[in-house]
């Protein structure tokens, strides 16, 4: 009964710190992504709310990436607080030993792994795919009414558009396009519409210059001129990204490397919790140097894992390297402990 209360308290403390650090790190990562999206979509003049909604789709993917980080700092902060407030000593002096801590760390580890597995193997790739599709749609939708500034926009591979916008009026419209000949169109005023995959330019007071293969020039001056250019959409294949593959896609395509990356992510989460228990909790050692050692070791492994995942590496070398590094840190931790005891 009493031990239950302690365990519930410990669990609530760990969860609280985990949520706090999750909130901090996720907010930072999300805000930086929003800043990047704002910059990337600046010239498209997409509504702020649309970008904010789009960025929400990034959250599950961000969580899968930052979760091990959150665990490192969440666990450290929680147990540092328990130690500072003498709660750790109080719980230990009850005579239960490390049992309540072990049970809670194990159950917390289990919950995190279930959550992470669901997220990493299915939910995050699915939502990330939606994000990629929506992002591509936004990039492909040029709403000229919202564009206030142009700098030789590439409408497609051969069409360039430039204009000056003053009080919602298009002025100094410059268009260069290729239809076998190289064409340049200039108009003092005009209107630009995007209808049914076609750019519709209604131009006033201008001229058109066509240059053929032999550099012969033809000119045409006009008072009113309508120019229609097809809008070629970017192919949806561009959406394909290894982060959009669920576990089922990986099995279908026999992408065992991607599966092993994801499994190793889970193993690394288990390692962080185990290493924390072994290095800090078991020894009741929460001094600064030991905390730094724990966090730096874990961060090194996580960063190395990230680099190896993105390097051109075979599955065997990848697994071998990661396990070797884990082993080195565990041995170092043991050596360090013995040295400290002596």
């Amino acid at each position, binding site marked *: 009964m009493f031990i239950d209360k302690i365990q519930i308290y410990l669990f609530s403390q760990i969860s*609280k710190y985990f*949520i*706090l650090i999750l*909130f*901090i*790190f996720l*907010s*930072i*990562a999300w*805000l*930086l992504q*929003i*800043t990047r999206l*704002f910059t990337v979509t*600046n*010239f498209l*003049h997409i509504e*702020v709310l649309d*970008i904010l909604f789009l960025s929400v789709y990034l959250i599950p993917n961000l969580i899968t*990436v*930052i979760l091990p*980080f959150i665990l490192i*700092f969440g666990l450290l902060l929680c147990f540092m*607080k328990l130690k*500072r407030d003498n709660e750790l000593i109080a719980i230990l002096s009850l005579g239960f030993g490390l049992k309540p801590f072990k049970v809670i760390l194990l159950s917390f580890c289990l919950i995190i792994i279930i959550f992470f597995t669901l997220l990493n193997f299915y939910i995050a790739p699915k939502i990330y795919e939606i994000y990629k599709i929506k992002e591509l749609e936004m990039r492909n939708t040029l709403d000229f009414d*919202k564009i*206030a*500034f142009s*700098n*030789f926009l*590439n409408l497609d591979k051969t069409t*360039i558009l*430039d204009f*000056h916008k003053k009080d919602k009026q298009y002025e*100094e419209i*410059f268009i*260069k396009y290729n239809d076998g000949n190289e064409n*340049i169109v*200039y108009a003092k005023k005009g209107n630009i519409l995007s209808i049914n995959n076609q750019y519709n330019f209604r131009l006033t007071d201008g*001229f058109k*210059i066509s*240059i053929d293969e032999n*550099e012969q*020039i033809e*000119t045409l*001056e006009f008072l009113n001129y309508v120019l229609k250019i097809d809008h070629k959409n970017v192919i949806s294949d561009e959406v394909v990204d290894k982060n959009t593959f669920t576990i089922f896609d990986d099995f279908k395509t026999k992408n065992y490397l991607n599966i092993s990356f994801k499994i190793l992510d889970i193993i690394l989460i288990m390692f962080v919790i185990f290493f924390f228990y072994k290095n800090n909790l078991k020894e009741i050692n929460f001094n600064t140097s030991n905390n730094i050692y724990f966090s730096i070791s874990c*961060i090194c492994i*996580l*960063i*190395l894992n*990230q*680099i*190896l*995942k*993105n*390097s*051109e590496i075979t599955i065997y070398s990848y697994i071998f390297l990661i396990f070797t590094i884990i082993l080195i840190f565990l041995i170092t931790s043991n050596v360090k402990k013995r040295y400290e005891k002596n």
Partner: protein
Amino acid sequence: MLKKDMKKINIYLFYLTNKYLIINFLIISIFIIFLNLLELSRVISENDKNILNFIYLSFLKYPSILNEIIPFVTILGVAFLIRNLISNNEFVSMRNLGFSILDIFKPILIAVFIMGLFFLFIINPLAVFMEAKYDNELDNKDNSLYSIKISDNEMWIKNKVDQQNSSFINIKNINLRNMFASNIIILQTKNDTNNFIMAEKGEFTNNIFVLKKVKYYDFKKEEYKNLDKYNLIINFNKENIVNSISKYKLVPYYNYINHSKTLSKFNLYSSEIGLYYLSEILKPIFTAVLAFVILGFSSKFQRNENFFKVLFISIFIGLLIFLLKEIITKLTISLTLNFLLSYFIIFLVPLLIGLYQIIKIENE
């Protein structure tokens, strides 16, 4: 209270603020480097995917990351600092000694402001230099909206001579080292007439674009001319072109004014650039205002109050202010607002919130 004691407390607070800022800088920058590895893996070419290259590129990116995370570090550093002062009963002791919230804020403000100045004068030029190198290493040819457009080796320039006269210049091949151009098309639009020029070669010398083997068409006279040489008068030089190719964010603080003037010549200056440059220059003051808001929110809590409530609320408000800054920047572009007005709003909103909170605490 003795002045000597006050000085001691101020030094202690100054030291503690710096300690919290440094710890947060380390943790958050490592976290962002970790996230940046994902970004790197997407842009780096297959042949360059090796550990050393990842480390080298992360090293090049580090100053930019530090520069980017100042607001977050300030928010978290000050929130954790105040929380620590409250937990250790130091905050209440200082208040009992007669320190007002503003007295406690002074050393924190000085620390944050000095950090801001250090970042402006040292890290900003370093970040620009290393980020440019980073882009170079990655062969990043993504054009900024506000730099001279280069697409598939073609250069596009719109030279605004005055309100009535402008030139659209398209250069199909250009050697940026010696500024020799070939396959050139120019459209001159003037008040009374328009001219179309095609040239095989061209060279930028001072404020003249010397064109060779030219086909010249005058729309008013409706006549063609084949010329061996034609001197096109422009209001920019080689240096202006080179400067305007770079992204506006990759300019050190001491070149902001010059760069803005150069961009105006190419019709590339917008209020977004003005707002960005002003934000960078006034960053030390903005971070101090952020610290002020965090202090206002976190110092009202008592020791026995919920730890999470304190941190969550103060950090949440801080991050909301950062988001507000980003949204106002975005609105400045969409609604073509004056950048001075935008910055005034960005600056005033947190300042008023912080001031309101502190007056409220002092009254309570």
